[in-house]
């Protein structure tokens, strides 16, 4: 049984069947990619996993517990972190503060009235944040406003923020969308490093086949809201059905 089990999920928007009977099993400590053409329902599926959308039918189990009906912050507290297509960070705050917030959230839970002690007096949290910034190679940018970071650095910061919470499942929504080749390669290297060094399961939605084939252990191909096939990267590459539905000219 996988760490994330999606069974019979349907989602309808008016007349549009966005997801039709999606079954998906993500194995612990693997990298599972979900690919598919535009409008295949990848983002809808992801939103069903993190509590942004609730499927009409079906179940989504994380580590034996249902995530359905829980708010995004509760799902995060269960151990699922999400990286967005456009980096979602606290733009007005410094890089350091961006890193502190998830660590506080991990330690103190969804809400804590922690209004008298100063941030700096929380030595352990500050140290943990500094370590994470070192790991992301961003220690020299700690006092910068995060809005003024480059696109690639924003992505690194966001991934670092997610990792600082030691999630069991990391969801990535097109992490290299709109990036230059160099930034894309950096991100791939970073994700490889995360995969190899940490006890973490990664589920990734991606357009860029280069990214998918360099990272994934398993690939699910979605087409028109339904999983077409699920297999290892080698078999996906050779699968004629996949070529026809999606890879087509690019493979």
């Amino acid at each position: 049984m996988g760490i994330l089990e999606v069974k019979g999920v349907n989602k309808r928007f008016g007349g549009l069947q966005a997801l039709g009977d999606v079954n998906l099993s993500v194995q612990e400590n693997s990298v599972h990619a979900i690919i598919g053409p535009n409008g295949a329902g990848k983002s809808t599926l992801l939103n069903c996993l993190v509590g942004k959308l609730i499927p009409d039918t079906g179940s989504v189990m994380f580590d034996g517990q249902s995530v359905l009906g829980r708010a995004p912050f509760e799902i995060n507290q269960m151990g699922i972190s999400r990286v967005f297509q456009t980096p979602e960070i606290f733009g007005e705050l410094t890089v350091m503060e961006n890193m502190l917030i998830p660590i506080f959230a991990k330690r103190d839970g969804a809400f804590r009235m922690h209004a008298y002690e100063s941030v700096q007096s929380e030595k352990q949290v500050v140290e943990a944040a500094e370590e994470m910034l070192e790991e992301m190679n961003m220690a020299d940018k700690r006092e910068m406003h995060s809005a003024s970071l480059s696109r690639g650095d924003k992505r690194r910061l966001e991934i670092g923020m997610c990792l600082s919470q030691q999630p069991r499942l990391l969801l990535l929504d097109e992490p290299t969308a709109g990036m230059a080749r160099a930034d894309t390669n950096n991100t791939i290297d970073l994700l490889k490093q995360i995969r190899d060094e940490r006890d973490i399961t990664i589920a990734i939605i991606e357009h860029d086949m280069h990214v998918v084939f360099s990272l994934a252990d398993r690939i699910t191909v979605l087409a028109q809201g339904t999983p077409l096939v699920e297999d290892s990267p080698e078999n996906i590459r050779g699968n004629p059905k996949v070529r026809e539905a999606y890879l087509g000219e690019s493979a």
Partner: protein
Amino acid sequence: MLGLNKKDTSLLLVVAALTLLAPFILNPFPEGSAMAQFNAGYPDLMQRFVIFGIFAIGFNILFGLTGYLSFGHAAFLGVGSYSAVWIFKLFTYNVLPAIALSVVVAGLFSLLIGFVSLRRSGIYFSILTLAFAQMSFALAYSVLSNPRFNLTNGETGLQVYADDPQWFHRDGLPDLPHLFGLSMRSTYRLDLGAWSFDFNAGYYLCAVVLMVVFYLAIRIFRSPFGMMLRAVKSNQQRMNYTGLNSRPYTLAAFVISGMYAGLAGGLMAAMDPLAGAERMQWTASGEVVLMTILGGTGTLIGPVLGAGFIKYFENIFSKINDNVLHGWFAFLPDGMEDFVVAIIHPFIGKGWHLTLGLLFMLVVIFLPGGLVEGGQRLRNWVRGKPKTENTSGKTEPAE
């Protein structure tokens, strides 16, 4: 000092010096001189500076940190005033229980209003708070002042009458709000040559309270809680996906700022034991928004400066009348003099709001970070530094 870093400590010391020495600072001109009308060092006005400073500091905790713009904070101020006057009526003229109750009642009231209003954000939140405040105003003005159940005394305003019980009032205590016998109106007047300075007990009570709540505001700004509030303003989406529930954070900020407003209302009643519904009107709510923006949203000292600025000009401009103007421009030829006075006339006296509006527009357009940004620019200019990116409208919350 007091668990603050060096910069915050010096900021606190500056505020302490300004408030404690205000009777000197605000009375720079000798009494009886032509400039004496620009003096602001009389007790009534100094009390207002400080009380509205407290109100604005609290408002800034909500608006400056979380970005939620409340248009109904005057309701909490009004509720605080009414609570305090009720203590005066029923129990005692001692101001401590009155102020304590006004904070508590305003806190509970803001919990209720915040719980409902914070279901929405942005403009909808603002409108909801505005609606609640106007409802509170209507309640205070008419509904809750019928003969059978008279909580607010309607148009007249709630005040202490001779036949009120005042159970804990003893003979020998002043028949006015007092602090363990020290009347809030007792004033010591120091005459130094042509100058005279007033040291008023009520003012110094307010000043001490201001320093305490300013200190607490610094602690909140520097705390993990304060950082979370800034995270609410910056990116709620990321916050929710980081395992944080933004609702209780905003509600806590709302209640804290409501309690600051209640404290201001309680102090207002302690300085002058009456409470009227007009304190809750939307213009009063708008005023604290202006103070905060004018001073510098999200900065520590900004709201205090904004409150002082507005209250000072309100007072000075509304005192100037045509006679004073004629005195100033007497050196001009007759026709010119009348002409100039006629031009300026709409901006003074009752028309001082026009002046305020112009000043506000100038500040918002040229100094988006408020007076604090003005101060920063001035400092940089004096030191000969080139313009920094600070002028982009994003003020450093640190100042």
